[in-house]
């Protein structure tokens, strides 16, 4: 093993221009990366593959950009990623498989939009919290009303006295005198 490494290194040092630099086909031919799972589907038709590729390139984030999708970024890294997406889709990998492949490598960050479960949580959480708050407020208001009623029953407020008909002439006289003094 080490000898083979030494051999390669010696080649690099002794004859740097002997390489296959010009023979890109040979380099391409050998270059393979093992994928974790086989494709779940047969290779799709060209139109389906193009539609899937476009959706994925718009949904996945360019690894070297801030907030740009693979489709929107002009960078070399995004182009390589876009090509890789196309290759995988053409081989029959489903959109979920391709997304999982990139999430496994780059983390959930690579998805421009968070998974739908998170969306739902974010959407429903304020509604649930608001509803709970309103229910709590209703209970509190109801309990307070009940307490006021109980207090009112325990300590009835003084009744407004009913005017005594026998005293009515005196009342009129007092009022008349008051009017007279006021004028």
């Amino acid at each position, binding site marked *: *093993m*080490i000898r*083979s*490494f030494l*051999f*390669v*290194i010696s*080649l*690099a*040092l002794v*004859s*740097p*221009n*002997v*390489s*296959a*630099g010009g*023979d*890109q086909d*040979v*380099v*391409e031919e*050998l*270059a*393979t*990366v*093992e994928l*974790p799972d086989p494709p779940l589907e047969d290779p799709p038709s060209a139109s389906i593959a193009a539609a899937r590729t476009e959706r994925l390139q718009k949904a996945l984030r360019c*690894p*070297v950009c801030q907030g740009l999708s693979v489709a929107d970024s002009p960078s*070399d*890294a995004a182009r*390589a*990623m876009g*090509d*890789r997406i196309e*290759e995988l889709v053409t081989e029959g990998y489903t959109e979920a498989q391709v997304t999982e492949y*990139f*999430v*496994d*490598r*780059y*983390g*959930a*960050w690579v998805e421009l939009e968070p998974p739908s479960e998170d969306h739902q949580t974010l959407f429903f959480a304020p509604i649930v919290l608001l509803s709970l708050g309103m229910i709590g407020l209703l209970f509190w208001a109801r309990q307070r009303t009940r307490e006021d009623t109980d207090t009112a029953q325990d300590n009835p407020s003084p009744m407004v006295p009913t005017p005594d008909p026998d005293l009515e002439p005196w009342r009129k006289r007092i009022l008349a005198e008051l009017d007279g003094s006021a004028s």
Partner: protein
Amino acid sequence: MNWKVLGAGAAITVPLVALLAAGFGRDPKLRSNALEGREAPNFSLRTLDGEPFSLSEARGNPVVVNFWSTWCQPCKIEHPVLMSAAESYGPNGVHFVAVLYQDEAPKARAFLNRSGSHWPTLEDPGGRTAIAYGVAGVPETFFIDKSGTIVRKVAGPVSQEIMVTTLEQML
């Protein structure tokens, strides 16, 4: 003191503060080291000299896979650390492999002729290997143990200290 009001205030503010603390305590630009602890994706590539190289050949030995390019200044700063580590740990069975990222082979050859290298440098057509390793910039270095598991990923230039510590752990 009105304990009911205090309790209600705490019930609202404590979760809110916890949520903000969790949000602000995390760097949104930080990329995940998703592959750490998982099996290193196998790849077969050609060296700059046209020789075939497969990661599986190195199974049973610790491997350091370094993604780099000549347009990356931090990669050049990191180069002496790799050279020194390869000289020290190569004889102990640690394999060093470099993968060229978004760069041209002639430029890499010219740089390596000037600066030297004790490891094979591989061409990565289409950047498939870089994508398989979740590379989002260079340099990025993956430390793979004898069983083929990625034990550490370092984004940015590897310091001498991290290099030595990690290699000692893997040996």
